[in-house]
């Protein structure tokens, strides 16, 4: 880099020695280079903005037709009437994501603690590789597994849950009690999605746990703590923000998961039901995947409106997650040196 030195005024020089002002003037090649890099950054920004703009423009007609009822209508007939909305689809998506998180967060955090605190050194790298591989397995493979392996095996358990825990509203079963009516339930979809969320939760919270200050760990041991006591009082409080951030990233992933949900759900109605064991649930992503080819322009606009809601929802969740995670890094400085 070309560096130009600008000395202070001669008067000042005579009295004292002021700090020299160093001005780095990039050469012309550097300016081009920086321009290219900056434009790449702008392109990335532009793509995100474009996604938002195009989705808004194209779904505008749908919003115009249904108005605010879009958020309160539990039906989806965009071609024949103005009766369409996400009042059933969005809660369904949220329900699936909630089931996924209920399974994935405990398992993921437990695995992360195991890897960072318990696993012998020889096992640590292979375990991390397994987690990375789990994240790399295509969602369609999870979908195949969920549909052909998990579903037939879990129906008995579902029925048992409905019979014995039916007093809990979520497990209440209102349909005729044949094994077939348990097929395609929200519960099963949530379980399959949870498998895709586990690696996200695990790898992120593992990174945060491994940053827990060594001094505080040793202090806990020195006070006579057991290992679990140390984890409970040092590692977990230190990693709390990391766990929350990881869970929210997982939530974003779970809300947007398409293929596994489409494979497993058998949408029948557009009414939202919290009975997770019953078949017939739907979700935003499944609705889009199932109907985008069948609809004309009006219908596609309605689907795009759904997509927009999904996009905004995940964008909010993910941005919150990254804020929480980046805040948590400052915790690394708590160790007094």
């Amino acid at each position, binding site marked *: *880099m070309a560096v130009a030195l600008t000395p202070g005024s001669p008067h000042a020089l005579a009295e004292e020695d002021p700090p020299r002002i160093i001005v780095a003037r*990039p050469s012309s090649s*550097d300016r081009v*280079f920086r321009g290219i*890099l*900056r434009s*790449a*950054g702008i*392109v*990335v*920004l532009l793509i*995100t903005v*474009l*996604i938002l703009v*195009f*989705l808004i423009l*194209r779904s505008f007609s749908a919003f115009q037709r249904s108005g605010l009822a879009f958020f309160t209508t539990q039906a989806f007939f965009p071609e024949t009437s103005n009766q369409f909305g996400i009042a059933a689809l969005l809660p369904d998506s949220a329900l699936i994501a909630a089931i996924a998180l209920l399974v994935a967060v405990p398992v993921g955090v*437990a695995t992360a603690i195991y890897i960072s*605190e*318990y696993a012998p*050194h020889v096992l640590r790298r292979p375990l991390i590789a397994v987690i*990375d*591989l*789990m994240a*790399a*397995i*295509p969602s*369609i*493979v999870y979908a*195949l*597994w969920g549909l*052909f*392996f998990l579903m037939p*095996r879990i129906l*008995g*358990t579902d029925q*048992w849950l409905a019979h014995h825990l039916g007093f809990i509203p979520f497990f209440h079963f209102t349909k005729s009690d044949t094994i077939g009516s348990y097929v395609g339930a929200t519960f099963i979809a949530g379980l399959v999605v949870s*498998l895709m969320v586990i690696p996200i939760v695990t790898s992120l919270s593992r990174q945060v746990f491994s940053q827990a200050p060594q001094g505080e*760990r040793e202090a806990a041991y020195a006070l006579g703590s*057991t*290992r*679990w*006591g140390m*984890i409970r009082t040092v590692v977990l409080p230190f990693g709390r923000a990391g766990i929350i951030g990881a869970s929210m990233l997982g939530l*974003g992933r779970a809300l*947007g*998961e*398409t293929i596994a949900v489409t494979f497993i759900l058998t949408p029948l109605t557009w009414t939202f039901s919290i009975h997770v064991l019953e078949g017939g649930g739907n979700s935003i*992503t499944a609705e*889009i*995947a199932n109907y*985008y080819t069948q609809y004309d322009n009006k219908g*596609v606009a309605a689907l795009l409106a759904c997509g927009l809601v*999904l*996009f905004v929802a*995940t*964008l909010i969740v*993910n941005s919150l*997650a*990254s804020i929480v995670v980046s805040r948590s890094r400052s915790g690394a400085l708590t160790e007094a040196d």
Partner: protein
Amino acid sequence: MTESTETRVPRPRAARAPSTAEPSAPQGSEGRRVDAPPPAAAPSADPSPERRVEPRVRFNRTSSTGSANFIGAAGASLGLVWVIYERVLPFSGVLGFWVTWYVLFLALYLVMARLQWDRLEARNRLAAVALGTGGVLVVLVVIEQVGYTLVKGSAAVTHSNFWTKSLAFAGPDSPMTVGGVLQAIVGSVEQLGLATLVSVPLGVTAALFLAEIGGGLARVVRTIVEAMTALPDLVAGLFVYVTLILSLGLEKSGLCAAIAIGVTMMPIVARASEVVLRIVPGALREASYALGSSQWRTVWNVVLPTARSGLATAVVLAMARGIGETAPVLLVAGYTKELNADPFSGPQASLPLFIYNAVHVLGTSAYVERGFGAGFVLVVVVLALFTIARRIGGAAPGELTKRQRRKLAREAAES
């Protein structure tokens, strides 16, 4: 605890007789077993005390008591759950059996631990076992996923026509000897190649911007990239569908699919690359500047070569993600049974899309079998890409591979 806490202490007196070492360990520290001294040092009549090898005190190793507890609880609960689950109560389902077994196992383990140790230690042990289950479960799930797809798919891939034919002449119930997934393999390869061409230069340049220039704009871009990493892949498909197909009036084609895959791959590349670029030592950059080189020379000749292995890993991992993407392709690629080698015109199949159509749209038993065959191919490709990524990613920035070291040695010998 890491091995750094493994300490060497002088052999305690009690440990002279190895048999008393175990019981004399303080309560609540099963792991604090004193290793039996090596046989050479065992005779206490040894006249030269300085020859004695100091035994290591090892924390948190398994002991016979601990594993006996573990196995005992596992076995007992297995028996108990069999009696209760299969005989007494009219339950069914394999999954329910194992869930019940696990709950019973934890309860029994806690009771057994409580009989021997105080509350804190019993809890400590229960936590260790419960957390370890997470690790075991995750490994089992991965093996299960990969294994199940490979086993179910192996029936289809043994037919040679599966690899060399398209499905153009196959009806809904045609046996496995008719048609194959050639069109899907060709489509996947072309779409992935195009997507890589789009996303890798953009992603790596954006990462360079974040790591080398920084500033306010970079912070915004970083937040956006992080948010986009977890963006629903379906939305990427919707975006391309809206922009290219609805607004610009392009037909559904492999190119549109490639762009959709590229949009999902780009943030992955950018984010992983930025992490790698950040761990390039700053001293290397400063050395380059001190020698008078400009910023782009420094990036081109110092930063990028140093981070090469990490960047390659980022790219390969993103490719592994890209080839399995179904949702974005679903909306924009169209689907065809026929072989279409031209990604720029006409609908084009790909492996995930093939599985989607075979299983979800058609769903006849012959097509489900073909779907699993395509899943076999997909899993093998992902595993291969993943292994490659791990192999090249093992090196730290600037670390040379064996081959590079040999080459350098050869050059040094020649000069």
